[in-house]
């Protein structure tokens, strides 16, 4: 018990980095992914094509490979990023592809009758989007998005492999020093669980109440 209390501040420092990385990735991928997803749903073919390629490319490669590529590969062409930036860039690149897909799916699942009805009562393009499409799309967007936030927090543990002291690496370091492995791993698992479980539950709730 005293061991847990002694290691806790150290683990909480790691947890802060985990949360920082996750939050950064989520905000950035929303800012980039939602507009691109809208283009993928409504845009002209020439604009959809590169986005489609990007999303399919990123989703076909493991996150770990993307992380290594940004951190170890890009310096070879003189793009040197500090590890934390590299981690956020790589995870954002991955998450953006997912956000693009979720956004596209959210808009495309709205029945075309909705657009037709909006047109027939005389709404313009902007009004159709603001008053008819967007409110419905958000309801379809949120459940899978909150679920993908859980994946982001889980995926952020991979940044430990670049030497960033997040919760995962803090845990490894504490175990290296104390040689108490199993109880500390379980404790770390419970810390991740404590963040992710409420999010998973929220996602399920949203799904039930929205759809």
């Amino acid at each position, binding site marked *: 018990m005293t061991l847990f209390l002694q290691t806790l501040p150290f683990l909480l420092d790691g947890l802060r980095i985990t949360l920082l990385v996750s939050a950064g990735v989520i905000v950035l991928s929303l800012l980039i992914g939602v507009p691109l997803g809208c283009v993928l749903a409504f845009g002209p073919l020439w604009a959809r094509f590169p986005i489609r390629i990007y999303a399919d*490319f990123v989703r*076909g*490669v*493991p*996150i*770990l*490979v993307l992380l*290594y*590529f940004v951190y*170890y*590969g890009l*310096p*070879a*062409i*003189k793009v040197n990023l500090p590890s934390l930036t590299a981690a956020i860039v790589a995870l954002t690149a991955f998450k953006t592809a997912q956000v693009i897909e979720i956004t596209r799916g959210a808009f495309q699942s709205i029945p075309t009758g909705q657009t037709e009805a909006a047109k027939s009562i005389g709404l313009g393009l902007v009004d159709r989007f603001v008053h008819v499409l967007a409110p419905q799309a958000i309801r379809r967007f949120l459940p899978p998005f909150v679920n993908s936030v*859980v994946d982001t*927090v*889980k*995926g*952020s*543990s*991979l940044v*430990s*492999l670049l030497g960033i002291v997040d919760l*995962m690496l803090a*845990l*490894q370091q504490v*175990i290296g020093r104390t*040689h108490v*492995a*199993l109880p*500390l*791993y*379980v404790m*770390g*698992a419970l810390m*991740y*669980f404590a963040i*992710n*479980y409420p999010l*998973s539950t929220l996602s399920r709730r949203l799904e039930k109440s929205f759809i």
Partner: protein
Amino acid sequence: MTNYHFNFAIVWRYSAKLFEGLLLSIELAIATIAIGMVIGLVLALVEMDGPRWARPFIRGYVEFIRNVPLLLLVYLVFYGVPSAIDLQYDATTSFVVTLAIYSGAYLVEVLRAGFEAVPKGLIEAGKAIGLTPAGVLVHVRIPTALRIALPSLSNTYVSLFKDTSIASAIAVPELAYGMRWIETQTFRTVEVYLLATPIYLITSYAILLLLRLAERRYAITR
């Protein structure tokens, strides 16, 4: 691009590491999917038809596994468990066990949705032609549920293949490990990634394509 001089020859000399790695990645994926499907099928059935007291345990397993990073589970099984109990196993076995337990938690959900979607009339028809409950299970419910769940199963399988890359963290010599190994041997970073990334990409989509072909043949859309 600056004045980077590509040298694929030196990387190509080590390319066997990549292809052996790819083979191991695929083997890892197949082994974990096989075990994970058994876990998923059994637990999905127990959750639906089994005793009431079993349900909280299955929910607990599913919720715990799905909310904890795979990397942590990999470390927990490989470093944590042997430190507490007297049990020795190599990294590959350890990873297969971990990923199977991990995939099981996702497959339970996918398969349960499949079972729940089996039309009632089909089960009644099975009973009507004189099948025992076990017969209905084997000949009606399981095949139908699998066919209904097939599209979701495909997606899970592909992401499991990608998840095998995490095995490199405990030095299982699969594709991502081979990639890092060549990189540290040759320092030809860009070339290694230009070779390894398409290997992942092509394999992921090849798996997806094969599964989509299977879907066209077998999937039941409602």
